[in-house]
């Protein structure tokens, strides 16, 4: 029950500061490991257009919320609210794992305000 409360609290769009991150420097991408690179690729393919750079756009901001990975995965698989769902035949389990990992590195990147 406690877990559910935490999750519901986060879903209530508690914004924790700026969702903006400093633009990456030249060659920063090249230093990534394969799984992060795949995560970025998946994010760009399926999420970027509505959550540009993890900021608010057509959809809400993602960078500035401490939402745990399993809740984000739940959102992707079920597409709650206005967001479309992405099932396993579109984004595989491994790709979604990498995607969430990438999303969480974005959250930790240097803030821009």
């Amino acid at each position, binding site marked *: 029950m406690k877990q559910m409360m935490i999750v519901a609290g986060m879903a209530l769009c508690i914004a924790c500061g700026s969702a903006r991150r400093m633009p990456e420097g030249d060659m920063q991408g090249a230093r990534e490991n394969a799984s992060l690179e795949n995560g970025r690729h998946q994010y760009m393919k399926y999420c970027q257009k509505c959550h540009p750079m993890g900021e608010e756009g057509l959809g809400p901001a993602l960078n500035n919320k401490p939402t745990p990975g399993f809740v984000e995965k739940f959102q992707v698989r079920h597409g709650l*609210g206005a967001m479309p769902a992405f099932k396993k035949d579109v984004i595989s389990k491994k790709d979604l794992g990498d995607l969430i990992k990438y999303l969480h590195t974005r959250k930790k990147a240097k803030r821009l305000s």
Partner: protein
Amino acid sequence: MRNYSMLLQLLLVIVLTACYSSRRSKGGGQTNVPAIRETSPADIVLPEGYTAEVVASGLNFPTAVCFNDEGVPYVIEAGYSYGEVFTVPRLLKIVNGETQEVMKGNENGPWTGIAWHKGNFYIAEGGQKEGGKILKVTPEGKQTVLVDGLPGNGDHHLNGPVVMNDHIYFGTGSVTNSGVVGPDNADFGWLHRFPRLHDIPCQDITLAGVNYEAADALNKKGGAQTVTGAYLPFDSASTEGMVIKGKLPCSGAILRVPLQGKELQLVAWGLRNPYGLAESPDGKLYVTENGPDVRGSRPIWGTGDVLWEINEGSWYGWPDFMEGKPVALFKRPGGAKPQKVLQTQPGEVPKPVATLAVHSSSNGIDFSTSETFGWKGEAFIAQFGDMAPGVGKVLSPVGFRVVRVNVNSGSVEDFMSNRGKKTGPASWLGTKGLERPVSVQFDPSGKSLYVVDFGILQMTGDGQSKPVKNTGVLWKITKKSSL
């Protein structure tokens, strides 16, 4: 756990749905206009090591820049902006931050692009009143019309040009949002001027007979409903199996003519608004396409703008595929699934190189060719920024930045945007930074990126555009270490 999960799901659905649908649109144009536009590069964020400076300001709806062989910048002023504001299109030479008029055009803007090739300028004249044209202009300002009678009187205009393989390549924008003329086109203004205008396919197409009811926007039927099919004039219904003859010039396409003009050739079609054209360092043609809006008789939701590599002869899917995917996927929350309007699909739809933010209005594009500037081989794209609520709802401003795209991986990263807790035009943020970047161009050395900033364009609550004259700026970005 199972119970938890179901409860959680229920709760989230309730919270999220209520949350999203009750939130108001907060687009970048939904703001008050400052009395004067000031600029300060300090309000702009770039990756470490890059600096921005102002080259010229006070420009009137500028849309593009090019350079002569000596590297002198020339800017075009559009002569038209959404909001039905007509001014005089002009070609300007920029010398020490001052503008010198080279030539003036007719009231047939917007001029959307310019290229310099072997001693002449080539200008894409949008064609809001007389149809699209390609103009050839000498450095002294003498102009000849190379091609005319091109589409451009509708929602979207004639775009480009880029010179490749001894041909001038250009884009013709679609007349409508998603193939069907409706009251939204009366709001734009042009339907009153051209009540019979509609999209034209490049090859024969067969319609599925899907029709759309809408309000009597032209007040011809005493308020009765109108019924309109795709690729037909307003209030003309389609029937199943109806064939619409393809012809050149067509709308929503990439076309080309030899440098000396004359014979029009089809390069690719099935595009909505192919705005920015550029040749990559390895000689391929790339095009940015503005995706559809949530407006008119056939609203489409959640479609990104797209970066395409153009394969000669291909059909890119509009109006039945968006981003290379079936249109049924792009239904409004709570709305009906959009139906296909074509009975037979004219071809296999290619896959996008990159999908850009929904409503970002991803426009001008150029490639870095310089180790000194960095990101050699990547595409830089100017995002004019959303025109919400006219195009649909956004939670925060979308676009209003220059992004760079790795054309191999499809990743889209921030390159130039305003400082602030949110992205947005300077007028929205209350700063002196970027407003609406509309095109980008590297100088001939490849060491500096010029960014054309259209200036302020406000959006009213009912979706009308209110552009502000003489607020355009030309910015220049350089890598510090390369100075």
